[in-house]
């Protein structure tokens, strides 16, 4: 084949202006976004539309809420309220902006390509920063533009007031994004390139938890005081609001208050100051970003080149006897060693999973979630110390132990990701793999849940006997639930390289929860036989005899009637039935699901690969 290539260039082509390069890159970015939309499935598009409608609904309802709050306030209190809103908006922009900046500036696949082209770095970062700014649009609208517009509507402001709203909104939007980019510079420096995907999950989850906490605070305040009046509260915070005037969010509220009072020029001054501050911070972030990448202060997250090296502190002693050829000889010509116990294999599987959980920070959030949820319940208990909250706390803990254990076990086989061939090809399929997985799933779960259960029981003053019973019960529940989770995991595991924490199909997850509920219900029946509730007995004793009269409804009622009969038996028979039901159900569920999982492991398991809109199965490998 004759190769026809044009001769190499002799001189570089003429340079293009910033605007020309920017337009070119922006168009390419738009093309990528358009193609992304075009190739989405109909289901995803419908989902996005539903999400958009929901977001709009939230936006409208929050708008009405803000409007309602503003109506009850004097203009001075409204200034404080606006300051608070702007501050919350800025904080949210910073948090969301860090994640967006990290994804756009560090994890982006096209940076190396763009850095290689004769396009100035400034243009590349300008387009990337536009994406970060865009990601903050919703937060800026929610916390800055809308409150400003509502404020204007409430006090019947003229058209010129909305110029101030626009300037203030723009200024705060720029400041939030610029601070996010500046903080992101440090994050990019701290996080090594090979852990960037992990970090973005970590930052996102952290921001999510923090925001969830902030949104729960009013609930806790209202629970404590029964009646919470925002206007009264704001009136009492005058000193704090005076201090806020020294910060950009205070300038924003000052600009709007001055604007509404007819002092447009002063308002314009404050809003321009805010905008200049935003532009100034943005320029600093921009310059430092460019400098950081050029100087190697920040590495590109591609390939191995960016990986920071550690100074070698120890030198490996070179043994001339350990020449590769000698090693090869010792491996292939040595004596055949005996086979090790499968228990070692089981432990190896468990250890692999435990190490993976320890080293991937995203895994930690799986364990932090119950802690945070429990924090709310403990908080609620401390705020409203009533008997019912104590009972509900223990019930929630036990229920959560079951659901949490099941959920953690559900992740087990999906964790193999693209490496599922390994566990399928080693001579360990069957119980060593499944028990290894169970061990890895249950050890951290038990450690966490038992600590929480016992700790909470001690704090709220539960008796020692009950605490021990609860702890033992939690172990058994956790084991049973994990066995169910493992079964669904081995049959429905999936792996999405873009979102490695999604490891199970949603349908299987729902089914696992349903089976777990059924498991708890039957176990509870055994427990009721063992520890007879007096209230129930008095109701049962008044019930007339029920007979089966045909039909589903009668069948269900008759079934419940039969199940309630052992409660009225003599203690020995009742307790014996209770033990048989509880132990039987637990054994049936635990050993049954474990046996089914072992069977599937012997047949070989497959991890469904999900990438964007496509999913594919790789060839199922068996032993």
């Amino acid at each position, binding site marked *: 084949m004759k190769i026809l*290539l044009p*001769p190499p*260039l002799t001189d*570089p*082509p003429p340079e293009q202006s910033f605007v020309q390069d920017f337009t070119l890159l922006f168009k*390419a970015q738009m093309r990528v976004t358009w*193609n992304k939309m075009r190739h989405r499935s109909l289901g995803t598009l419908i989902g996005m539309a539903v999400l958009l409608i929901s977001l709009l609904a939230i936006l409208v309802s929050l708008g009405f809420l803000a409007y309602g709050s503003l109506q009850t306030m004097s203009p001075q209190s409204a200034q404080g309220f606006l300051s608070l809103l702007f501050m919350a908006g800025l904080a949210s922009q910073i948090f969301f902006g860090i994640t967006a900046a990290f994804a756009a500036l560090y994890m982006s696949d096209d940076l*190396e390509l763009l850095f290689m082209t004769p396009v100035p770095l400034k243009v590349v970062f300008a387009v990337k920063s536009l994406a970060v700014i865009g990601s903050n649009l919703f937060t800026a609208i929610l916390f800055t533009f809308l409150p400003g517009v509502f404020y204007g509507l409430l006090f019947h402001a003229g058209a010129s007031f909305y110029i101030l709203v626009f300037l203030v909104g723009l200024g705060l939007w720029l400041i939030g994004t610029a601070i996010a980019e500046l903080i992101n510079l440090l994050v990019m420096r701290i996080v090594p390139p090979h852990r960037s995907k992990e970090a973005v999950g970590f930052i996102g989850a952290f921001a999510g938890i923090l925001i969830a906490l902030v949104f729960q605070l009013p609930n806790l305040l209202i629970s404590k005081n029964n009646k919470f009046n925002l206007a009264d509260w704001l009136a009492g915070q005058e000193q704090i609001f005076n201090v806020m005037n020294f910060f950009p969010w205070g300038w924003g509220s000052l600009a709007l208050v001055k604007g509404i009072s007819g002092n447009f020029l002063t308002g314009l001054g404050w809003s321009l100051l805010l905008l200049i501050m935003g532009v100034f911070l943005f320029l600093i972030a921009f310059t430092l970003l460019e400098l950081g990448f050029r100087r*190697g202060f920040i590495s590109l997250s591609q390939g191995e080149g960016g990986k920071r090296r550690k100074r070698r502190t120890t030198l490996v002693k070179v043994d001339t006897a350990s020449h590769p050829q000698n090693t090869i000889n010792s491996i292939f010509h040595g004596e055949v060693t005996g086979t090790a116990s499968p228990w070692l294999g089981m432990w190896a599987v468990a250890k692999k999973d435990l190490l993976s959980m320890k080293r991937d920070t995203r895994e930690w959030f799986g364990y932090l979630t119950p802690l945070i949820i429990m924090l709310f319940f403990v908080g609620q208990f401390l705020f409203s110390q009533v008997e019912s909250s104590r009972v509900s706390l223990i019930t929630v803990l036990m229920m959560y132990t079951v659901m949490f254990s099941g959920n953690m076990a559900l992740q087990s086989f999906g964790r193999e990701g693209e490496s599922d061939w390994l566990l399928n090809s080693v001579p360990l399929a069957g119980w060593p793999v499944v028990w290894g997985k169970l061990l890895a799933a249950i050890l951290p779960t038990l450690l966490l849940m038992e600590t929480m259960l016992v700790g909470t029981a001690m704090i709220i003053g539960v008796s020692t006997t009950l605490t021990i019973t609860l702890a033992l019960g939690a172990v058994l529940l956790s084991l049973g639930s994990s066995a169910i989770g493992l079964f669904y995991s081995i049959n429905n595991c999936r792996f999405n390289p873009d979102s490695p924490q999604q490891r199970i199909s949603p349908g299987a997850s729902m089914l696992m929860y349903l089976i777990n509920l059924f498991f708890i219900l039957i176990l509870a029946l055994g427990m009721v036989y063992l520890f007879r509730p007096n209230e129930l007995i008095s109701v049962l004793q008044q019930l007339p005899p029920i007979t089966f009269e045909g039909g589903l409804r009668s069948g269900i009622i008759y079934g419940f009637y039969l199940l309630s009969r052992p409660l009225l038996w003599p203690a020995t028979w009742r307790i014996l039935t209770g033990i048989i039901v509880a132990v039987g159900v637990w054994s049936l569920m635990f050993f049954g699901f474990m046996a089914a999982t072992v069977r599937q492991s012997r047949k070989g398991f497959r991890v469904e690969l999900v990438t964007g809109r496509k999913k594919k199965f790789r060839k199922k490998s068996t032993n």
Partner: protein
Amino acid sequence: MEHVLIKTQQLTKRYGPVSVVKGLNLEVKSGEIFGFLGPNGAGKTTTIKMLTGLLDPSEGEAFICGYDISKQPTQAKALMAYVPDQPKLYGKLSAREFLHLVAALYRVPKDIIAERTEQLLGMFELGDRVDELLESYSHGMRQKVVLAAALIHQPKVILLDEPTVGLDPASARLLKDVLQEMARQGAAIFVSTHILEIAERMCHRVGILKDGLLIAQGSPEELRQKVGHSGESLEDIFLELTGGHENAELIHSLEEG
């Protein structure tokens, strides 16, 4: 007349106290294919990243077609192309859209972009899948797209990091022919590779990097003479030079020589 198109002077890269590339001096002339060899972690990719301007050197300078890559990056990059070992592309663009984008970024005149795109896509046998999104391409096909993108703006210098990984034998052969044709037309080719047969057959000169130091450079024949075993392959020479401590004296003598 032979021009030096790639030149480094005391090029050094340090990460904290650790030097990854140490005072690298090399020259690649017009029409030359230069093989850059070295064991894993020797500093090859870091060197290429400094040559391409993706990384600023801690010390020293790098020139592409006479332009200092740190001070005149736009001019230098306009005359150069880089083929990375792990091609990261816009998954949501088709091959045609991608080549059009790269051509525009390198300021190829609009009237010849379409024609050259079709030529290159045809040459790398991507013609029947040009409108599919790149995310559906295999590694080898992505590599072909990157190679086509690297050639679209008629570069005078081309730097390739493990270019044959993932390519089928026919494509690898095509790549070799393309690089030889480019060299014949006066371009300078800088190839980092582990496949020593390719280096031996294709490269006019090779440089061997070890722990950030250029321990040897010259034509394969010159290296054989330096090592003193005229009949040995480049693989043997490479292993001898980059081997254990027992070769320290040999390396020392080469450095002095």
